[in-house]
């Protein structure tokens, strides 16, 4: 069971939280302008990397706020959590998008 640091409440067990989905997928400003492929990419397709993954969680049994987590899909290690609207860089030597 993961230990997740909620940016508002501090470290809490995974059962306090609800997993959302991949983070930083902004809803398109003007969906009508998108072709079918671009819209399908937004609605259906996610990156599912092997390695570091930015993902969105909600502290369901706590402050009920959404935030972002950088987790390794290989080791489950969590290296940072941060609030929506932020996007801190990964520590030196770690690859975004997860290829190792």
């Amino acid at each position, binding site marked *: *069971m*993961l*230990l997740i640091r909620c940016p508002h409440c501090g470290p809490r*067990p995974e059962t306090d939280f*609800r997993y*959302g989905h991949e983070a930083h997928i*902004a*809803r398109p400003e*003007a*969906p*009508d302008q*998108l072709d*079918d492929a671009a*819209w*399908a990419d*937004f*609605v*259906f397709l996610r990156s599912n990397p092997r390695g570091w993954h930015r993902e*969105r969680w*909600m502290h*369901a049994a706590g402050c*009920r*706020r*959404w935030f972002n987590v950088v987790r390794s899909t*290989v*080791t*489950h*290690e*969590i290296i940072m959590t941060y609030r*929506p*609207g932020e996007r801190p860089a990964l520590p030196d030597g770690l690859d975004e998008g997860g290829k190792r």
Partner: protein
Amino acid sequence: MSEPFRLPDGGRIDRSRRLAFTFDGRGYSGFAGDTLASALLANGVRLVARSMKYHRPRGIMTAGVEEPNALLTIGDGELATPNMKATEVALYDGLAARSQNVWPTLAYDAGAVNQWLAPLLPAGFYYKTFMASQGFWQHLAEPFIRRAAGFGQAPGRADADSYDHRHVHADVAIVGGGPAGLAAALVAARAGLRVVLADMGSGLGGSLLYRDGEIDGRPARQWLEAACQELEASPAVRLLRRTVVTGHYDQGYLVAVERRREPGLRASGRGGPAERVWHVRASRVVLATGAHERPLVFPDNDRPGVMLAGAALSYLRQHAVAVGRAPLVFTQNDTAYETAFALARSGWSRVAAIVDTRTEPTPHLLAEAEGLGIRVERAAVVVGVKGRAGVQSAEIMTLAPDGGAVRGEARAVDCDSILVSGGWSPAAHLFAHVGGKLVWDEAAHCFRPERPVTGVALAGAVNATFALADVLAEGRAAGAGTNAPAGAPGGAQGGASGPSAAPLWQVPLPRSRTKKARKAFVDLQNDTTAGDIQLAAREGYAAVEHMKRYTLTGFGTDQGKLGNVNGLAILAAATGRSIGATGHTTFRPPYVPVSFGALAGVERGDLLDPVRRTPLHAWHRAHGAVFEDVGQWKRPWYYPKSGEDMHAAVARECAAVRTAVGLLDASTLGKIDVRGPDAGRFLDMIYTGRMSNLGVGRVRYGVMCKEDGMVFDDGTVTRLAEDRFLVTTTTGGAARVLDWLEEYLQTEWPSLRVYANSLTEQLATIAVAGPKSRELLARVSRGVDLAAETFGFMTCREGEVAGVGARLMRISFSGELGFEIVLPAGSAMAVWEALMTAGKDLGITPYGTEAMHLLRAEKGYIIVGQETDGTQTPFDLGLGWLVAMAKPDFIGKRSYARDDTRREDRKQLVGLLPDDATLVLPEGAQLVETPVKLADVPRFRPPDTGGPIYVDGEPVPVPMLGHVTSSYASAALGRSFALALVKGGRQRHGQTLYAPLETRTVACRIVDPVLYDPEGKRRDG
């Protein structure tokens, strides 16, 4: 003496406390400090079980958690606990143990006939049986297997024991209380860290409790005593004895089960829990879980009296039990010599021989054996065992130098037990649980932890480190959180501590015997033999995970702790690969079986799941309501009067709503207060319809969809003020919808000034429905003009009902004139009772969810989750009028321009009238174009026959066009009807489809889904 195998002195037992127990009804005695296994052995009880498949006689094989045979049922009635390992049950006075999987008795077991059926029960028996004809499976194989296989019986009575869970945090969590774990704990405790140490045994010490050794120039047992005293006195150290860590999870999380009361033992006084689950979260984890001794694979190696050499030493030193008068030790390494020497020195046993597979055993051990008068057979192996219910003699042959064959004459050696050691396998299960990788170590001949896992340290035998000095050094380093000292596994110290001799994975058989070879078992619990594994390899199941499932090696309550590595090595040899390349199966939690009671803890009975009751619950119960579970809510399903069945009650309730007036408790509907200057804009994005132009005091029905355009909830939106809306949701969707609104407000549109709050529990809703509902409300309300012209459909008024301030909404989910009264939950009961009293002469009738469902279905109104499954657009449901495509954007809008959502043949909502007006179709029934009877369709045709199957010239399976979503018998319609989703359904009105049922096929006409009052004349009363 009553305990013929008990030594006159020694052991860690309390001879002043004699305990009586029974096994299969027969009385025996033992001492405090015994395990059930040691007490049985002390009494000379050898035969304790029958094996799963062949029902062979089996005895106690081990002294611990890896025991494959001695699974017994402990206790009776509501305290009966099946499948307990005799090696792990502490003896108590009055313990009652029973053997399992035997009929009629353990000694004369009819199932033993399976031994002679063995040629019919090869590896892969289950797979091959499944491939046989259905008749063979149903009538012969399954009943036979069900009776013959398996373990203890699940108890028939509710468990009388209690269980609980505790959570604890630590700086260091240490698993295993042997020398490595204790050394780690001492260092960590002295550094002032919070330490949790969990150990399976009743006493700390691990191998130090029965093996020789010196620490700091003193006997190891003195060091152990001092270590235990120091740890017990340390306030920051929590020692968990009889506690087995069953799972190791990410970021230092351990789940452990503590045995606090023996199985079958009735709690005295307040008792406390029988088992306690510990949830440990630690900054660092130290695994000092030791190693498991491997048995040797030779013919009839499962006979009672064959036992691990280390187990025999443990019984001797801990319980003063000699497992045999004339033991024979069969080994390929040094460790078993200590067992032989200790038994010889006890003065009680005469060691028949040490049979060592090595040509050159360790010289100082040979000298010691000679001094004790023990004959050592070098380069020798046991090739056979005499004695079915107990070892009587062993057959010995000489091993060729390459280990691949035996030669010379077989010689018989009389003995009453065979104590085996085939090397040691690190118990690295908990390391693997968190993704740790194991590699085959060619020097230590075992799978050893390789790549480190962050925050996890290993110490001792789990690391393939066996010499005591190295074990302690690793333990200290792990406790301090530093790197382990350099040094090769196996260590600097010699002596009887290294298992590093080359293993002999399977004893070769003399040529003359290989054809009619006796069974050489690899996995005793699953009756898997070396031959089964070789057969699996020949039949193509050469991958370890395939071999496991084909032969069952590694399944069961011991999960292959005893036999797995031997099995992998035999598979490697059969497939010409190295053991490392063959690999091992996956280690998953739990490390040992965990009782359901422990997992549940206190969360059973009334505490299993929260129950949500509406403020009117007491009234419903007092008036005989039958309740339906809707999520966690209890909702009145129907209110039967005396003598009424459900059908009659529902028909009466429906008639009351259609002709008079009914009351429904709709309080479970989700209610969300959405407010703020941007609330209208926000709801425009959430709903497919437009909400921002809703006038204050008006109500609008809407559906919300996901971005894929599919409906996920529905309900009404009422504008209470310019900046304030009351949103209702389905009962089951309340929490989901609030989360949905919050996610968009927090992440997509944080600049919108909107707040959403749940009011579901604060507000009650009473639905008043029926042509006389206006008349009823006129009698009890004040300050509201109820006239149809002024209080229009889908509008909201504030006023007083029975003296309580409330909102009234003109909403109808039945098609009749209807009002919903929304009021504070605390006032709901008074208002409901006032309505019931005021409406008596109008025929007022409370109705439940079943009548509500039926009434809405007659009107073709959907229920999300019944007519929808997450793949329906509003257009599919005939709700296109709810979609404001003129809005620039809303969630899901863009998806309605996708080809897939515009297909003509999407499943669409239709009404369905069965030709047989008395038949209520089952919900979920499939609809097809051709009247095929299911009875005509062959149940099973092997896939390799090729081509479609035809019935009456039609290919089977026939194309499925849709399915029934709701189905009822309607009194108002005078017939049965259904709602269904049918491909291109709106173009099929008037067509006939067929519902193939178990015994008949029903023709159904497709019609418009609105079957009752299609003109909507009844809405205004």
